[in-house]
C-alpha cells in the first residue's frame, strides 16, 4: 500500500516529501525530548530541555557568533592550506612514481594521527596565545582525504585519451591542462568536501587542549565545567551548524564546477 502510494507520487510531491519528512522527524524528536524533561521530570543536569537550550542560544548569541567565526576561520585556513598542499603533492606523486612510494607510508601515518595526541604538543610548541596549532591540525586532517582522492583522480586518464594527446604532440603542460586536471577534478572536489567536515571537527576538538579561549570547543568545555549544561548544548548546536555550513558550501562548489559535465550529474 505504502509502495503503491510512493510510486504514484509526482516529482514535485516527492521533493516536498523529501524536505518535510526530516523536518517532521526533527519536530517529533524535539517534542518527545521536551516532554521527557518537563512532564516526566528528567533532571536538567542529565538532559537540558530544548527550550532551555534555545533560551541560552539567544542569550549568548553574540558570544556564539564570535566563537563560530574564530573556530570557522581556523578550520577554513586549515582546509585551504591542507587542500592546496594535498593537490600539489598528489600532482608530484602522480608524476614521479618514486615520490608516490616514498610518501605512501607518510600519508598513511598522517591519516591515523589522533587529534588528541597532536593538539597538546602543538599547543605547547607554538605557545598558549597562538591559533597556529589548531590551524595546523585542521590542515593535517584536510590534507589526507584531498591527497588520496586527487591522486586517484590523476590516475583516471583513459589510455585512448593519452594516445590522442601523444598523437597531437601535446606538451606536458597542455596534457595537464586539457586532460589530467579535468579528469581529476571531480575526485579533487569530493576530497575537499570530505575534508571540509574534518577541518571543522579538528579545529574544534583541538581547542579542548589549551591555547587561547573564545572558540566553540573552548566554550563548550568551559560551560560544561561550570555545570552550565544548557549553554554547552547551545554551543554544540552552533558547532553542528558550522560543520553543516562548511559541508554545504563545498557541496555547492562541487555541484557548480561540475555543472558542465553531464556524466557527473548522475552522481548521487
Amino acid at each position, binding site marked *: 500500500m505504502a509502495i503503491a502510494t510512493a510510486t504514484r507520487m509526482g516529482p514535485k510531491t516527492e521533493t516536498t516529501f523529501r524536505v518535510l519528512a526530516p523536518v517532521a522527524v526533527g519536530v517529533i524528536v524535539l517534542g518527545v525530548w521536551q516532554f521527557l524533561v518537563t512532564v516526566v521530570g528528567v533532571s536538567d543536569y542529565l538532559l537540558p530541555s530544548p527550550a532551555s537550550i534555545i533560551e541560552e542560544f539567544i542569550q549568548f548569541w553574540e558570544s556564539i557568533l564570535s566563537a563560530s567565526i574564530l573556530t570557522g576561520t581556523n578550520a577554513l585556513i586549515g582546509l585551504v592550506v591542507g587542500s592546496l598542499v594535498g593537490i600539489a603533492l598528489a600532482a608530484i606523486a602522480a608524476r614521479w612514481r618514486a615520490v608516490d612510494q616514498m610518501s605512501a607510508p607518510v600519508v598513511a601515518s598522517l591519516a591515523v594521527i589522533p587529534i588528541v595526541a597532536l593538539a597538546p604538543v602543538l599547543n605547547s610548541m607554538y605557545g598558549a596565545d597562538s591559533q597556529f596549532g589548531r590551524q595546523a591540525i585542521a590542515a593535517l586532517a584536510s590534507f589526507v582525504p584531498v591527497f588520496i582522492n586527487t591522486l586517484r583522480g590523476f590516475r583516471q586518464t583513459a589510455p585512448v585519451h593519452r594516445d590522442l594527446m601523444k598523437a597531437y604532440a601535446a606538451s606536458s603542460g*597542455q596534457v595537464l591542462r586539457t586532460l589530467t586536471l579535468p579528469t581529476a577534478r571531480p575526485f579533487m572536489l569530493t576530497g575537499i568536501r570530505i575534508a571540509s567536515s574534518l577541518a571543522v571537527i579538528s579545529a574544534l576538538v583541538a581547542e579542548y587542549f589549551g591555547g587561547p579561549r573564545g572558540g566553540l570547543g573552548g566554550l563548550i568545555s568551559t560551560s560544561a565545567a561550570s555545570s552550565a549544561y544548557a549553554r554547552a548544548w547551545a554551543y554544540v548546536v552552533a558547532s553542528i551548524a558550522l560543520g553543516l555550513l562548511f559541508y554545504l558550501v563545498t557541496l555547492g562548489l562541487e555541484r557548480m564546477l561540475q555543472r558542465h559535465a*553531464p556524466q557527473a550529474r548522475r552522481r548521487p
Partner: protein
Amino acid sequence: MSAAVEITGVDKTFDTRSGAVQALTGIDLTVEAGEFVSLIGPSGCGKSTLMRLIADLDEPTAGTVEVFGKGARQARLDQEYGIAFQSAGLLPWRTVAANVALPLELHGVASAARSTRVAELLDMVGLSDFADRYPDQLSGGMQQRVAIARALAEQPRLLLMDEPFGALDEMTREKMQSDLVRISAETGAAVVFVTHSIPEAVFLSDRVVVMSPRPGRIQEIVPMRLGAEAARAARTEELREERAFFDMVTAVREALHQGSPVGTAPRGLENR
C-alpha cells in the same frame, strides 16, 4: 612526391612477463598518397600494432617507418596525420564543438579561424545541430562521427583509423562507411583503416592487406578491382549488391584462409 606511408622490414616485439612476444615480423608496405588501404586479419595479427607504429604511438623493434618521407616521430610532431580509434575517445567535459576544436586549440589556431573550421567540419559529418551537446548525449554513431571530424580538423593528408566502426550496429556502420568514402574522396587523404570485417574492407579500400597471426605478418595484398577505374566517390550503396563486390569478398576470404577452401572463418573475423 613521396608515399604517404613507407614501411620497410619492420619487426615489433613486446616484452611481457611470460617472455618476448613477436607481434609483427618482416613487414613491408607502401601506401601511396590518396590511397585507401585496409588492414584485415584475425585477432592478434598485429594490425592495430602496425597502425600504432605508423602513428608513432609505439616504436618498431627493427626496421623503419616513414610518413611522407619523414621518420614516424617527426611526422607525428609535424602533425602529418589525423587519427581515430575504436572508442571515440571524446573528452566528456567538452561539448561536441570543443572536442572537434581540441587539436586546433592545442596547435595554437586563432579562435575565429577555429570556430569557422569547426562549423565546416560539423557540417561535413552532419552534426551542426549538436555543436553544444556533450558526448554522452549522443549515440555511439554520432560520437564516432565527432571523432572523425576531430581527426580531419587539420586537413591531414593521412588518416589512421583503428576499427572506428567496430562498436556500431550494422545499419549505422554502413551509413558511416558511405560517409567515410565521401569524406575521403572530398579531402583526398590517404587512409590506413584497421578492421576485422571483410565486406567493410572490400567496400572502402583500394587495396586490402590481409595479415596472419603469430607472428603477425602480411599474408597477401589484394587489390580491389571494383571501382578501380572509377573514382572512390562512385562507391555507392549499389556496389554492395553487385557481383564484383561478392567476388572481392570471396578473394579476401580465400587470402585469409591461405587459399584453402573456405569453410569456417578464422577466429575473430566477421563475414558480415
